[in-house]
C-alpha cells in the first residue's frame, strides 16, 4: 500500500508539473503572420511569440466540427471571432504592447497564448 500511495503522490506531482509548471516551447511568428490549426482539442501552435508594437495577423484553420472549437476569444483584447470550418478565418489584431495574451474557446477547452516581445 505504501508503494501505491507513493505512486499516487508522484502522479499528483507529475500532473502539477506537466500542466502548470512546465513552460511549453514558444513558436516564433513569421512577420507577425501566424497560421493556427484548430483540431483535436488544441490550437497548433498554441504558444506563439510575436513582435510587440506591430499588427498581428492570425489565420485559423478550423478542422474540428466540435462546438467547442467554433469561437476564439482574446479576453484581454476584448476580441472574439466565430471560426467557420476551413482556413477562411482571418483575424487582425492591433499592435500589441509587451506582455502575454491568452486566447481560448468559449469553454476554455482550447487554449493558447500570444507572447508579445
Amino acid at each position, binding site marked *: 500500500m505504501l508503494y*501505491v500511495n507513493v505512486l499516487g503522490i508522484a*502522479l499528483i506531482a507529475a500532473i502539477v508539473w506537466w*500542466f502548470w509548471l512546465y513552460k511549453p516551447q514558444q513558436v516564433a511568428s513569421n512577420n507577425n503572420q501566424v497560421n493556427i490549426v484548430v483540431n483535436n482539442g488544441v490550437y497548433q501552435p498554441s504558444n506563439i511569440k510575436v513582435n510587440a508594437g506591430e499588427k498581428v495577423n492570425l489565420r485559423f484553420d478550423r478542422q474540428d466540427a466540435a462546438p*467547442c472549437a467554433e469561437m476564439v476569444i482574446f479576453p484581454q483584447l476584448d476580441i472574439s471571432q466565430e471560426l467557420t470550418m476551413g482556413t477562411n478565418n482571418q483575424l487582425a489584431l492591433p499592435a500589441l504592447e509587451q506582455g502575454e495574451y491568452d486566447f481560448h474557446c*468559449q469553454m476554455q477547452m482550447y487554449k493558447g497564448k500570444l507572447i508579445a516581445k
Partner: protein
Amino acid sequence: MMNKSSPSVKNQSFIIEGASCASCVSKIEKVLHNLQGVDAVEMNFAQRTVSIDGNVNQASIIRSIQEIGYNAKPMDSESEQDALDEKAHADEAHYRDLMRNMYIALLVGVPLMLYGLFIGDMSVDTMNQRAVWFVVGLITLAVMVKTGNHFYRGAWQSFKNHSANMDTLIALGTGTAWIYSMVVIVAPAILPEMARHVYFEASAMILGLINLGLAFEVKARGRTSEAIQRLIGLQSKTARIVKDDKEIDVSISEVQLKDVIRVRPGEKVPVDGEICEGKTTVDESMLTGEPMPVSKASGDKIVAGSINKTGSVLFKATHVGKDTTLSHIINMVKRAQNSKPSIGRLADVISGYFVPIVMILAVLSGLAWLNIGPQPSIAYAIMAVTTVLIIACPCALGLATPMSIMVGIGKAAESGILIRNGEALQTASRITTMLLDKTGTITKGTPTVTDVILFNEHKEDDIMPLIASLESGSEHPLAEAILSYAADKQYKTSQVSDFDAITGRGVRGELNGERLLFGNQALMNQFDIDVSRGAEQAQTMANEAKTPMYFARGDMLSAIVAVSDPIKSDSVDAIERLKKKGVHLVMLTGDNETTAKAVAKRVGIDNFIAQVMPQDKVNEVIKHQQNGEVVGMTGDGINDAPALAQADVGFAIGTGTDVAIESADITLMRGSLHGLVDALAISQATIRNIKQNLLGAFIYNVGGIPIAAGLLYPIFGILLNPVIAGAAMAASSLTVVSNANRLRFFKAQKS
C-alpha cells in the same frame, strides 16, 4: 440615419475571380500595395480571397483589381450568408456523426448494462467467463475507437501541449474502466476475488451518452445565434439600379455610392439611402423594434434591411456594403455577444484550472478508497476515479455566461436595443436611479405651435407671416416650430432688415420701416413693451407645459404665440413601468421651472431639475453616483453625451446614428421610452439566466465531484455509478445551453 460620409473602411476582404495561377497573387498584391492608404495586403490563393488592411475606398480596390484583369467581390452579406449556410451544413453533418456514434455505443452499452442488472453479474471467475469477457472487451474497444476516437486523439494532443480539457477527462475515465476490466480478464490473480468485476458497459455507455449530449448541444447552440442570423437574413442580395432610364438588377456588392435604386412594394431596401422620388411606408421593425410602418417621402432616409410596404420609390444610395446601418448593427451585436460581463470572470478562472484539479482529486479519491475503503477497495477505487473524471467536465461552467449573453444580446437586438457589451448589460440590470433628459426623450423633441393669441383686432393671416419672416433668420429650435407652422399654412415670408438675435431673449428686426420684436418677457421689458394684457394667458400656457412668446409690432403687443414640445404618446405608460421596477426617476431639462414642472407632473415624475446646462447634467450624474446609486442616463443626442459617458450606463435614445451606436453603452433604436424599460427587463432576465446557469454548472461540477468520490458512501452506502456520471456530464452542457435558449422566449411585460 448614418452620418458617415467616407466610404473608406479598414480591414476589408474580397473574393477574387479569375485568379488561376500563383503568379496572379503577386500581381494582385502589388497593385493593391500601390494604392494610397493600404497598410497591408494578404492574398489567400487557395481560397481566392484577399484581405486589405488600411484606410482605403472599396471602389478603388475593386477598380484596381479589375484594371489588371480580375474581378473582385466584397465579402459582405452574401459571403456572410454563405458562411452561415456552410456552418449550418457543418453542424448538421456533425450532428449526424454524433448521433451515429451514440447509437453504436449504446447498442453495445445498453445490453451489457441490462445483462448486469437483470441476468447475471459482471464478475470473472472461470476460464469460460474470461474468454467471453475478453471478446466483449475487444468489441468494446472497437466501439470506443469508433465512437470516441475524437476524444482520445484530442486528449493525446492536449497532453502533448501540456494542457488538459474535456477530452482528457473522457479519455481517462473510459480508458480507466476498460483497462481495469481487461486486467481483470487477463491477470485476475493479481486482484482480490471480490474485485474481479468488469466495467465495459460503463465505457460504452459513457461514450454513448456524451455523444448524445454533444449532439443535442450542437442543435441547441444553433438556435442561440438565431438573432444574428435573422439580422443577416435581412440583407438583400440584389438591388435594382436605375441608369439611363433602364432598370438593371445587380448583386448588392456592386452597388456604388450615389447609385439611384428602385425599390417596389414588398421588397427589402438593399442599401441605406435618401428617397429622391415617390412616397411609401416602410416597416423598420426588425431594426427598431417599432411595429408601426413609418411614412417616407422625398428627402427622407431609408435603411437597408427595412421592408418597403406600399409605394414604389427611387432613392440614392448613401451608404453601401459594410457602411450600412444594418452592417454596423450586425457587427456590434456580434462583438457584444462575444464579450463577457464580470459575473462570468470567476467561472472563467475556475474553468481554466479545473481539469488538472479534477485529475488530482480523482487520484486522491482513489487513494482514499484504497487506504480506508471497504473490500474490494480496488474495485471501489476504480469506480470512484472513473466517476470523478467523468462527472467533472467543466464545459457547463465555461458555457454558463457566454450562452446567456449571446441569446440575451440577440434578443435585445430584435427589439431594437443595441447593447454594446456584456458589462453594460450586467450594470443595466442593477440600475437604481435613472436620469431622463426631457426634450427628445420624454417629449417628441419637435416643438409645434399650439396657440396664437391676437391683440388689437389683428388677424392671424397678417401677424404670422411677420413672425415667420422675423424667425427665418433665427437658428433657435423654437424658430423651427414657427417656420413649420407658417409653411403648413402657406404664409409667405419677406426679407427683414436690421435683424438681431438677442441671446436668451429673442429676435428683433425691421420690415416696411416697422420694428418687430419676438421673444420672452425680458425682451419686451428691454424695449419697454407693456405685456400686462397677456400676462395671465401666458402664465396659463406655461402651466400647461407650453412656452409662450410675445410679438410686438412697433410699440404695441400684438400677439402671444405658444410653442409646445408634445409628450410622446407612450411616455406616461413607460414611466409607470419604470416606477414599478423600483427605479428612482429624475427628469433633466434646460426649460424653465414652470414648463419642467408641468411636464414632470403630466408624465408622473416627482423629481425634476430645470434650466440645466450639459455640464450640470454630468454633475447630477456624479451627485447620484456619490450617493452610492447605480445611475443610468437616457438622452437623445450630442448635448447629452458627457452625461451619457459619466453614467454607469448611458442609453442613447431613438437616433440610430453610427455615433450613438458606437459610443453609447446601450442604443435604443426606436424613440419610445418603452425601449428603455425593455432594455432593463432584458438585462435583468439575462443576468438572472446567467446566475441560474452558473448555479446549475456549480451543482454539476462542484457538487457532483464529492458525491462521485464517495462522500455519501459512509452515510448512505451510495457510490455513484460511472454511467450516471456520464449522463450527468452530457446533461450539464445541454442544461446550460437549453436554459440560455429560454431567453429567446422572453417578453417584456407592457402595462
